């Protein structure tokens, strides 16, 4: 049966058909939909784990019990899970264990574009890379078989364009018959890695990877497509698709097994062509190994090492290499006459519960004097009174104008810890960290404990919107909903903070600016670690939509700033001032507020109404009002 599936959907279906019984993950773009799809199968245990390390070890536990398990995460998730990943490579499995890792070249929704293929080599774990959804579906069963036969976790590596692109899949399998019931086989020499038992495991891993290289010589999904023998291209993943299009007549070796590489197959292919080129995204992973085999090959000299590829980039590389002729001017990319278009960066949604905190932090951050570099903050202001370290989530969007509310975003958990480091280094400013509820549970708790133990004075703001919003509203331990959308026990974040020894714990609402400001001011001023939990539901998740507010056009106009302008000047430039308007409400950066003809307007179908009302609170003229029923 033909189905149009994304790579992630195909991986989930392939894993289901391969008989997976336990699936674990922490949400992260572009990997999230794998677990979401696994959770829809009744006969699969699926969980959102608290973080990727937890997910990895839960998966390993299941595999040791003899059932097939799959762990999925985004590329940076494997950094968090690396300890468990290396551990799994060391002790091996019983039931198949497949670790799906989705890289994000081009950083569509990530803070870096690390190439996780290095992890396979680093941990001595075999790696498979699909080049479309069909392959993603087909290789899952092979990955599980390989894992069991070779007693090793298997890594399946995708990228955004594989995980999120849909293509036609011939679904020919069905749910495999499950293996024997789960059991534990006592084997301290395999599972208890004290040095005495661990030492013999290393030669085993080396021997295993050599055996895998031989197995991969015959791996059925690796494919040679003979064309013109003048140019031979070795490629894998989505890069193969770009290369096929750019070099329609060349010969191809498409690799699905990218670690360990099938060296004899590569030698045979290389011997059959005049010029050898590797087309791969990000690092020269395949190229370097082929070079180390003593084979003349080109790659990163023509194909960029940074960013996501596409056919255009590959073609330009090929032109530079003299492999394809220069395109005629006729075919060159057309440019439209309109230039310098207004940017449309992603924004906090109308009614977002993070906006109030962002506005208050922005106000507290910037003082009236001094100057800051252009493009690094609002033009009118200057000296920083606070440093705001942020974590990874929707609230990272607070960095954009007009909010400019945060100063750092490095990795999960690094909000609390960076603030502590800044403080202990002795910076003059106060430090405030912001992170989300899911992120706090993922990686924030050790940092908070560290603050208590090491006598920090810093303030931690936990933006509790009761979901993992950025990745598409997944449950987490604080939400009371499981991955299968069943009721689950709730971990109370405030109790966690109190439990680790924070005395000043505050729980406040997300839409009262006065309360938010007073609480943050008080917490920043005191000499002990403090936590402010700002609670408000994600409007997108809860689909909150009330009667929209509106701007009373008679009241909207020049704000109280006129008081600070000498009246002679004010009268002389009255026209200009009224054209400028007050604009106070624009400082909250709400997409539902527009500004035209010197006055603000509210876009009715975007405004969520009274439950937010931040604009009502900051309007100096009381011009924003409820539409009478």
């Amino acid at each position, binding site marked *: 049966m033909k189905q149009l599936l994304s790579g992630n959907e195909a991986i989930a279906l392939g894993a289901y058909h391969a008989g997976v019984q336990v699936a674990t993950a922490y949400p992260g773009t572009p990997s999230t939909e794998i677990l979401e799809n696994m959770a829809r199968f009744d006969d699969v245990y699926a969980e959102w784990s608290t973080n990727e390390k937890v997910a990895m070890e839960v998966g390993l536990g299941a595999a040791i019990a003899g059932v097939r398990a799959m762990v999925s995460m985004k590329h940076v998730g494997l950094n968090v899970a690396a300890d468990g990943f290396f551990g799994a490579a060391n002790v091996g499995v019983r039931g198949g264990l497949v670790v799906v890792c989705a890289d994000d070249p081009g950083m569509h929704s990530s803070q870096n574009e690390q190439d996780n293929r290095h992890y396979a080599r680093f941990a001595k774990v075999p790696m498979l890379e699909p080049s479309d959804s069909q392959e993603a579906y087909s290789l899952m069963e092979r990955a599980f078989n390989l894992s069991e036969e070779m007693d090793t976790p298997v890594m399946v590596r995708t990228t955004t364009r594989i995980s999120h692109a849909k293509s036609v899949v011939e679904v020919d399998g069905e749910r495999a018959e499950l293996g024997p019931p789960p059991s534990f086989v006592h084997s301290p020499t395999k599972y208890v890695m004290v040095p005495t038992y661990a030492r013999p495991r290393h030669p085993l891993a080396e021997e295993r990877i050599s055996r895998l290289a031989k197995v991969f010589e015959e791996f059925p999904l690796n494919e040679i497509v003979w064309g013109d023998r003048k140019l031979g291209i070795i490629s894998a993943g989505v890069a193969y698709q770009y290369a096929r299009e750019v070099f329609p007549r060349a010969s191809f070796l498409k690799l699905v097994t990218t670690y360990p590489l099938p060296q004899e197959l590569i030698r045979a292919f290389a011997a059959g062509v005049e010029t050898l080129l590797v087309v791969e995204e990000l690092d020269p992973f395949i190229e370097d190994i082929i070079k180390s085999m003593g084979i003349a090959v080109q790659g990163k000299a023509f194909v960029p090492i940074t960013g996501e590829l596409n*056919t255009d980039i590959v073609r330009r590389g090929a032109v530079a290499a003299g492999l394809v002729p220069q395109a005629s001017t006729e075919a060159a990319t057309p440019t*439209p006459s*309109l230039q310098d*278009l*207004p940017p449309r960066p992603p*924004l906090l949604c109308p009614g977002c519960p993070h906006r109030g905190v962002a506005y208050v932090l922005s106000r507290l951050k910037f003082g009236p004097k001094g100057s800051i570099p252009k493009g690094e903050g609002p033009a009118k202001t200057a000296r920083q009174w606070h440093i705001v370290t942020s974590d990874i989530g929707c609230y990272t969007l607070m960095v954009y104008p*007009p909010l400019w509310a945060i100063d750092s975003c490095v990795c999960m958990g690094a909000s609390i810890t960076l603030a502590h480091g800044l403080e202990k280094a002795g910076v003059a400013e106060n430090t405030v960290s912001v992170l989300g509820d899911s992120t706090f549970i993922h990686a924030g708790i050790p940092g908070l404990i560290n603050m208590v133990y090491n006598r920090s004075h810093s303030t931690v703001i936990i933006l509790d919107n009761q979901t993992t919003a950025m990745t598409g509203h997944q449950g987490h331990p604080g939400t009371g909903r499981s991955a299968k959308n069943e009721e689950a026990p709730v971990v109370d974040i405030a109790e966690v903070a109190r439990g680790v020894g924070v005395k000043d714990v505050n729980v406040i609402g997300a839409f009262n600016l006065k309360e938010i400001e007073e609480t943050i001011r008080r917490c920043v001023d005191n000499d002990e670690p403090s936590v402010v939990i700002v609670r408000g539901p994600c409007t997108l998740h809860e689909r909150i939509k009330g009667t929209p507010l509106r701007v009373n056009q008679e009241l909207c106009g020049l704000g109280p700033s006129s008081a600070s302008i000498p009246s002679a000047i004010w009268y002389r430039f009255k026209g200009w001032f009224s054209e400028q308007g007050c604009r106070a409400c624009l400082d909250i950066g709400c997409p539902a507020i527009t500004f035209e003809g010197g006055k603000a307007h509210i876009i009715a179908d975007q405004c969520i109404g009274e439950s937010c009302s931040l604009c009502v609170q900051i309007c100096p003229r009381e011009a924003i009002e409820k539409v009478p029923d």
Partner: protein
Amino acid sequence: MHTQTDMLLTGVGGQGVIMASDILSSAAMSAGYDVKKTDSLGMAQRGGSVTSHVRIGEKVFSPLIAPGGADFLLSYERLEAVRSAAILKRGGVAIVDCAAVPPLSVTVSGYYYPSIDEVRESLGDIARAVYMLPATEMANELGNPRVSSVLCLGFLSVFLDMAEQQWLDGIRGHLPSRLHDVNLAAFNAGVEAAREGRKEEGE
């Protein structure tokens, strides 16, 4: 033989771009095409630019359309149409909902937002035909502004070699049943508008 056709759908998050490209891709698959589609979303679910590449043909390799390669540009917002214009093939077709959704950079930072005529002219530098369609207005008349996404698909369908039934199945397959009637009406309104529009263009 299925001719290779590359289509870029674009708009603002929340407008139904992804849903429209899902319907289009399903319809193409049931018409026997090989299909690849891929979406580029910014980080936020709402308010950012969204593009969806849909490629259909006998055999499709890359899921991404190369710049200057799209046969059709279907935009649900006029600024986004210009932003994506460079993907359009010379002599391609642009179908644009005239609707304005000015970004915050316009309202707050004073960027200029292009007029309907400027968008038409700018796209006309590249496209053989530019259809500026009051799709959101038409959708409002049908009682639901959100059906503009399917209305524009109806418009596009007139240019493609797929049977009506395949489109209708695609619509039914991707939308809850309570929205079927209004979306089918929107699809037909789009088809009608395209027939009118093509006559005027002399196509």
